């Protein structure tokens, strides 16, 4: 039986605004399957986003949704979670929104290890605002603001999240669609901040400037560069050159922020 996405989407919202071949739709489908698999209820689940192509995602979802200022999704989501700790909070954003404009909020959400799921759709570019380079644009790649090639080194979002203290970090790709829902579901079940990075494609503002002839070429690249963590353990450093690891990259149990804060409230009441 075909999967019934319709019951999770606001009526009349499709077709969505994303360009032909944009991987955001694939990630959104994975997220819907994960939410369904975890049995999250619509009234008890908040999906929060900032600004950007990826941040349009909550607008399609028939859940409690919050569309906030550019880069501030993690800050608003932290507020939601602290006010209503019983809610499931999912943050969705792009690489520019999450790691540049909202980089500060992102690292501190990781540091606090607050019980949320942060899904970053990494398409290596600012798509909606006109194809400016982001911290995830590969070195040497062309963007509307780096027409002679990007001189900047690139952020590895997953390593950044692990370094900043997130207790669950996973990475998938839009090509490996069947894996996305499993990674997100694990992230939702995890107690603490779960970061799931989905490597994505932007055919319109990244692909055509960087010699990808089609969406299919971009998908083939994702297929080529992705190496599951288990397979990578048996590979040499030379073989792993230019590859990215996929799967669950990091998981640990650490004190969760809302619980820690509840203890502060309890201590203050006794004082």
């Amino acid at each position, binding site marked *: 039986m*075909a*999967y019934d996405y319709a019951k999770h989407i606001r009526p009349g919202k499709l077709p969505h605004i994303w360009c032909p071949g944009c991987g955001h*739709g694939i990630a959104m489908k994975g997220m819907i399957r994960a939410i369904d698999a975890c049995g999250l209820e619509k009234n008890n689940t908040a999906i929060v986003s900032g600004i950007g192509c990826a941040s349009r995602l909550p607008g399609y979802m028939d859940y409690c949704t919050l569309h906030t200022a550019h880069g501030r999704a993690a800050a608003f989501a932290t507020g939601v979670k602290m006010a209503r700790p019983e809610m499931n909070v999912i943050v969705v954003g792009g690489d520019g929104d999450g790691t540049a404009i909202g980089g500060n909020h992102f690292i501190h959400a990781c540091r606090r290890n607050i019980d949320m799921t942060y899904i970053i759709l990494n398409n290596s570019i600012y798509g909606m605002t006109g194809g400016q380079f982001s911290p995830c644009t590969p070195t040497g790649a062309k963007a509307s603001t780096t027409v002679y090639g990007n001189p900047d080194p690139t952020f590895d979002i997953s390593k950044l999240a692990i370094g900043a203290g997130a207790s669950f970090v996973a990475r998938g790709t839009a090509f490996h669609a069947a894996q996305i829902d499993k990674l997100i579901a694990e992230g939702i079940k995890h107690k603490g901040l779960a970061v799931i990075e989905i490597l994505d494609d932007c055919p319109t503002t990244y692909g055509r400037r960087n010699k990808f002839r*089609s*969406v299919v070429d971009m*998908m083939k690249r994702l297929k080529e560069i992705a190496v599951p963590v288990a397979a990578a353990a048996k590979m040499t450093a030379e073989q792993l050159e230019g590859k990215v690891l996929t799967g669950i990259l990091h998981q640990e149990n650490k004190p969760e922020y809302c619980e820690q804060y509840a203890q502060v409230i309890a201590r203050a009441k006794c004082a």
Partner: protein
Amino acid sequence: MSSPKAKIEVIERYCKGCAICAEFCPTNVLEMDAFVVKVARPEACTACMQCELRCPDFAIEVHKL
């Protein structure tokens, strides 16, 4: 040729013609017809669901028979 394992439904109003489904179908069931995908060889479908999973536009439904 064996009987098809699934019925593939294309919602043409949602399809943006990206061709991901047609390109990565392991048994070449799908084909691009101008800017919309069409089910060219339904008898070859093995119901692997990859087209439905990878369609970014919610435009393909694979109903297993």
